[in-house]
């Protein structure tokens, strides 16, 4: 079938292509689009195409100057894109590498005629095909024509039709909104009231206001086929995947195995045939994911949906097989045929299907450690923020490695019944526990419908646990046979030590392994199961006979044509940051990837260890060698022993890698950059306080408590409000502002619980201070400060959640001078080599030290892009002994003539039951960047990119603020009135600001006037400003107001400063039009 693009444009020769990125990291759309986008950009440029990239996310490799020709760090909306198209005049647009965001935007530009107006053609899969795949109605029609079975379903646009249909097919029914991301707004309804609840949200979130109502196939197996098709119709399956969790749980929420494990070839080919038939009929030119469901009890199957673009699954398929899907898809978009494209791994053509000789397992990482109040049940909507992938030669081995890669505490006392059905994030641990409690495979199958073969694997692991346990006894040594069996099944030394007991330690198991010669071997991921010689330096560990990862020097001298590096060059290992989670996001992957690039430039061989399949760092060509492994001491130390590197870089992978510092240095590993003692000096509050005292740097009054009564003593001494937090945590976990003794009583138990043996830190909370932070690089002597940044919100909001601007807008020169001096002193005292992030609070002319982090921070990419200086590259060079003065003599902190603002996005919509108020514990998933001539414009762009925009058609605002904000609210409402906003306010606020419409409290509405919730739900309000009182109970009106706004999609601001600056920006904007510029255009204005 041939298709035209839907709009008639004459064919233009393509030399310039617009690539749309996916914007900030959100649940359902993570780092995978940086990975695929980066690969696609590189593939296009290889063929001489000029690439124009738009993405608002600064923490991406994709937005680096050497990935695209022109980079626009601009908000992703159709008005901005039209401006860029007008300015750049590209001939083509690549819509399929920016996730659902990119796809929806391209479709919007197509529908509103912009593409036609500027004669921009779709490259690769075109608008018509996208429509066929994404519109439920068209897709259903096509499937009928192709005779591919589907679950009985119907497109509905209103509740009545939905109700009728649901009664026809019977509950439970599945609700799937069209054109949404990660199943947002979807769900399973067991009855009419649930149906109504889900539909209310679903209708609103669907880009077309339509949802698909579908008979539930709950309990059927779920299978995915990753297809690539070229313009000639040549198609190949890159990877098949099987969901461990059966239907009813979103594939992004499911543990996924590759390749498919439980289907016979006959069934596999049946699904393969259907996948190819569908992809062919849709007219995909590029990559496409096809999802099936198969009833394992009857063998009948249905197609669930297809995604005619690069996706989370395609990223996983790429990492699982080694086949560069995005790269090949980009070449196809340029018109190449599969057999004309080279597979860079084997040197043969891209027209083949990878063969795997291992098992890959992906396991999601959920944010419930941060959102403990949220509903932990899993369903058709994604709640996980990231994922880890593990590779093994058996399913058991891969599963144990995958769980280990999550970097979480495995719940020990767990009641299986609470987690099996409906499933929660802890189901996998519950299955282990159920087997420990002697449940059978058949019983668990009945309960969960998870394939018996999968359950059998866990049963086997639990049997092995018993075998290890029962082999123990007084004076008995662990036998070689059992130890080998345990290692081959993926048990960690720690787990074996725990099971064997007898006081044996991890390091004793490690020695015993050496004694028995049970050492890991490393195998290559080569896309061909060893059939061809492949030079992919992509490894995983397993316990086998042959080790293919001979040390890099030897390896290189064997490989002939790869001599761009000195044969004898030393290698350096960079430890990555694992799965994306709140507080440890893509920023750290950006840093690790940059270090790998920098190492190459410095003549070192770079080795990356990481386990996140979504990222650029785990692309096989980002480093000279990639180890896809868990990031525990054991796994990392094994690699170090295998590689004998010159040194290891730990400061770029966030807390995960930093946490390895102690044990690695104890084991004699050379840590490059700041040493463990420096890290400890900064992280140990007592030591740090002494240091600040010695250096004469003021800190907010503080103390450290190891027992409860000590905490109260300290609190009384320094006076409330205070900030309490455990030491050594990611992103302020368990951290809070406490205003009185009662709150402290309530909180301290939780905080102590979070960090076990670690003490609790108590600081005086500085009300209304300006929080600032510094990202800098030091070489031990010189400190280069990239920027002094300023938080827009007052101190007390986690820096990861704050809106941040550079250069600073409120600090005096003297304050900046002080910050610089303090920073230099601290960096020197910590013996800091490499990156350092230091946070200060400034109040009434005094600069207080809050904390120093001798490692990469999440603002490093933002700063690097804002100032146009690659901070990580500098840091890597100094870690290897170079001096800043030699690299860039007389480097001074740049003082840009423009402003850059970092804003943030939150996962509140996905996590029902979560309050959206902000505090010292980080809760955002991603970030955006806005640049402008003035602070206001930059700020507005950053907020716009983060989705916090004020609908210009709804010039009405709802104000409801806490007492301490009421003075400011007066000013704010004046400003908003001037801008023509109609102002609604709750009683207390209204009394203060006057001239506003008073809105009745919840439940106090009447026939004339709806109450506040109804008002928000009616959609009349364009902006909600609600600042929460402390406490965060989910019963307060404020909580309900904020949730209502989130669910209605109305921007809700919870901080008065944020709101104020937004109003000022709106004022400025009323006189200016938003302009678009590339990042290098901005950077050239600097200095």
């Amino acid at each position: 079938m041939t298709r035209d693009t839907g709009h008639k444009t004459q064919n233009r020769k393509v030399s310039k292509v617009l690539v749309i990125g996916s914007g900030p990291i959100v649940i359902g759309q993570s780092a995978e689009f940086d990975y695929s986008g980066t690969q696609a950009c590189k593939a296009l440029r290889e063929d001489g195409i000029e690439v124009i990239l738009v993405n608002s996310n600064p923490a991406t490799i994709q937005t680096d100057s050497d990935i695209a020709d022109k980079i626009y760090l601009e908000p992703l909306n159709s008005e901005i894109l039209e401006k860029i198209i007008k300015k750049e005049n590209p001939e083509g647009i690549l819509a399929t590498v920016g996730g659902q965001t990119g796809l929806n935007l391209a479709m919007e530009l197509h529908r509103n005629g912009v593409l036609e107006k500027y004669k921009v053609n779709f490259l690769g899969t075109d608008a018509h095909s996208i429509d066929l795949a994404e519109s439920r109605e068209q897709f259903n029609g096509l499937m009928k024509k192709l005779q591919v079975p589907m679950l009985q379903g119907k497109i509905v646009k209103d509740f009545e039709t939905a109700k009728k249909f649901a009664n026809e097919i019977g509950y439970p029914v599945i609700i799937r909104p069209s054109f949404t991301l990660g199943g947002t707004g979807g769900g399973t309804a067991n009855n009419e009231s649930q149906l109504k609840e889900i539909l209310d949200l679903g209708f609103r979130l669907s880009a077309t206001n339509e949802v698909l109502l579908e008979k539930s196939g709950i309990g059927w197996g779920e299978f995915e086929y990753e297809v690539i098709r070229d313009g000639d119709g040549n198609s190949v399956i890159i990877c098949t995947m099987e969901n461990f969790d059966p239907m009813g749980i979103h594939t992004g929420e499911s543990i996924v195995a590759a390749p498919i494990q439980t289907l016979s070839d006959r069934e596999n080919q049946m699904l393969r045939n259907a996948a190819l038939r569908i992809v062919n009929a849709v007219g995909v030119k590029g990559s496409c994911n096809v999802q099936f469901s198969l009833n394992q009890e009857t063998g009948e199957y249905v197609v669930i949906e297809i995604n005619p673009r690069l996706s989370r699954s395609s990223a996983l398929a790429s990492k699982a097989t080694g086949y560069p899907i995005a790269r090949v898809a980009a070449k196809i978009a340029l018109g190449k045929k599969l057999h004309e494209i080279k597979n860079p791994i084997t040197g043969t053509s891209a027209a083949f299907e990878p063969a795997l000789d291992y098992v890959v397992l992906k396991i999601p990482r959920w944010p419930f450690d941060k959102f403990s109040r949220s509903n932990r049940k899993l369903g058709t909507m994604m709640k996980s923020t990231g994922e880890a992938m593990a590779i093994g030669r058996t399913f058991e081995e891969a599963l144990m490695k995958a769980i280990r890669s999550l970097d979480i505490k495995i719940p020990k006392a767990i009641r299986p019944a609470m987690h099996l059905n409906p499933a929660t994030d802890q189901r996998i641990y519950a299955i282990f526990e159920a087997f420990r409690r002697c449940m059978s495979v058949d019983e668990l199958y009945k309960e969960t419908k998870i394939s018996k073969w999968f359950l059998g694997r866990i049963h086997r692991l639990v049997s092995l646990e018993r075998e290890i346990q029962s082999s123990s006894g007084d004076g008995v040594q662990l036998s070689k046979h059992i130890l080998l069996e345990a290692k081959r099944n993926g048990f960690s030394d720690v787990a074996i030590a725990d099971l064997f007991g007898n006081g044996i330690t991890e390091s004793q198991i490690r020695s015993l392994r050496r004694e028995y010669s049970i050492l890991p071997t490393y195998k290559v991921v080569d896309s061909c199961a060893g059939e061809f010689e492949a030079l992919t330096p992509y490894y995983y560990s397993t316990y086998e006979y042959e080790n293919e990862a001979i040390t890099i020097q030897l390896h290189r001298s064997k490989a002939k044509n790869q001599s761009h590096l000195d044969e004898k060059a030393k290698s350096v290992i960079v430890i990555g940051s694992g799965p994306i989670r709140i507080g440890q996001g893509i920023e750290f992957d950006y840093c690790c990837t940059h270090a790998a690039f920098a190492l190459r430039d410095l003549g070192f061989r770079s080795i990356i260890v990481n386990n996140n399949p979504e990222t650029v760092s785990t692309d096989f060509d980002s480093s000279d060698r990639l180890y896809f492994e868990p990031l525990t001491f054991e796994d990392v130390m094994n690699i170090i022993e295998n590689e004998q590197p010159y040194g290891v870089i730990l400061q770029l992978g966030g807390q995960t890698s930093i946490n390895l510092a102690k044990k690695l240095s104890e084991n004699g590993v050379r840590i490059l950059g700041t040493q463990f003692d420096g890290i400890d000096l900064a992280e140990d509050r007592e030591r740090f306080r002494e240091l600040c005292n010695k250096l004469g740097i003021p800190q907010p009054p503080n103390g450290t408590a190891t027992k409860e009564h000590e905490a109260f003593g300290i609190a009384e001494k320094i006076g409330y409000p205070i900030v309490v937090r455990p030491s050594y945590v990611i992103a302020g976990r368990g951290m809070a502002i406490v205003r009185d003794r009662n709150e402290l009583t309530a909180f301290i138990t939780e905080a102590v619980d979070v960090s076990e043996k670690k003490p609790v830190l108590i600081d005086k909370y500085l009300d209304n201070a300006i929080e600032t932070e510094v990202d800098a690089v030091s070489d031990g002597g010189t400190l280069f400060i990239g920027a002094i940044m300023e938080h827009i919100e007052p101190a007390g909001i986690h820096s990861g959640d704050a809106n941040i601007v550079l250069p600073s807008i409120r600090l005096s020169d003297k304050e900046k001078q002080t910050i610089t001096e303090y920073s230099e002193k601290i960096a020197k005292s910590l013996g800091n080599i490499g990156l350092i992030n230091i946070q200060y609070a400034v109040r009434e002319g005094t600069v207080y030290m809050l904390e120093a982090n001798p490692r990469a921070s999440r603002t490093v990419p933002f700063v690097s892009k804002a100032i146009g200086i690659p901070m990580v590259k500098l840091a890597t060079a100094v870690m290897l002994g170079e001096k800043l003065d030699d690299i860039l003599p007389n480097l001074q902190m740049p003082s840009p003539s423009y402003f850059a603002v970092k804003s943030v996005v939150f996962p509140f919509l996905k996590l029902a039951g979560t309050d959206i108020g902000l505090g010292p514990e980080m809760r955002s998933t991603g970030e955006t960047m806005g640049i402008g001539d003035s602070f206001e414009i930059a700020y507005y762009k950053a907020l716009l990119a983060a989705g916090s925009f004020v609908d210009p058609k709804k010039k009405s605002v709802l104000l409801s603020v806490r007492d301490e904000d009421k003075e400011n609210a007066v000013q704010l409402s004046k400003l908003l009135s001037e801008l023509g906003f109609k102002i609604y306010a709750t009683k207390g606020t209204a009394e203060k600001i006057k001239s506003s419409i008073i809105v009745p409290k919840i439940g106090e509405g009447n026939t004339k006037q709806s109450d506040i919730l109804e008002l928000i739900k009616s959609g009349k309000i364009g902006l909600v400003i609600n600042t929460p009182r402390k406490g965060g109970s989910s019963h307060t009106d404020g909580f309900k107001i904020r949730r209502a706004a989130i669910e209605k999609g109305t921007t809700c601001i919870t901080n008065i400063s944020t709101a104020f600056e937004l109003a000022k920006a709106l004022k400025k904007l009323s006189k200016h039009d938003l302009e678009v510029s590339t990042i290098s255009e901005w950077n050239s204005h600097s200095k």
Partner: protein
Amino acid sequence: MKNIKSVLLLQDGTAICGQGFGAKASSQGELVFNTSMTGYQEALTDPSYGGQILLMSNPLIGNYGINKKDFESNKVQVAGFAVRNLSPDYSHREADCSVNEFLADYGVPGITGIDTRFLVRKIRNAGVMPALLATYEGDLDISKLNVDFNYSDHDFVQEVTTKKPQKFGNGKIRVVLVDYGVKRGILNELVARGIETVVVPSFSSADEIRSHEPDGILLSNGPGDPSILTQAHKTIPALSNHGYPMFGICLGHQLLAHAFGGKTFKMKFGHHGSNHPVIHMETKKVSITTQNHGFAVDAKSISQDFDITHLNLNDNTVEGMKHKSKSIFSVQYHPEANPGPHDSKHLFDEFVKLMGGKGR
């Protein structure tokens, strides 16, 4: 199966010990590897594996057991089975027994728990080689074992071909299927197209074949070295002189080449898998194909009367050819799949077309 041990001894002296399964037996064969990720049952029963010890690169084998449907012949054909991880249990609604039981029933030994990737790489670098696979209990003096096997010395076709003609299916078109070790999948494709299929022994003479009054002749797949099947080299040209449409698959393709004066050569480690890309020279259309052969047709030796129609994208070996004037064509790969992609099933339709149209 718990206490049974197993050893795989290669001709170069490499000995690998693992856990034994299947029959308690000792067996010799040529060690070849297959990279398919599904379809172990079809492979085990494929007559083309006669005389070979099959090594699977996919480490997980036996997950869905053995069912009653996916047989390519009526028994286990491999000489031995070597895997990384034979699943101790299986789960599938169609499953009838485990791989362990299946191999035991047919007297074939297996080995599991070994570094199969090491062996795949070894064969890739050194080429296929004879090996011995023995399962045993207690102790075994491995130094006393000896590999004494030469694949090319054997006429495996004789062992696997039907002993007398058999008729399958009904229809207006009649095909004689010359059985050099035919997979059931090929027969099924013909029968499904409404073709009366007469399966005849490999040693049938041209006259015997003609006596069935066929509308076309299909030369099947099968094991072994095509150059030693000298009778077929003579029978085929005799048949072609009578103008029968002919379709050669795998060994059948190689025999056609020989019949018209061409040559075949032994490949280093052959093609055994379900992911081989083949390009059709005329349309540039790529198909992913199932392959299972250790010999290939030498492109330069092919008779001037033939055009090369298909090439392997990986190594450019000949994958298909067609007679310039007669209705004769052949492919090196397996259009019937089983296991593997169904991308090339249309070739059976083309064969039907050559014979003058629809079967039914």
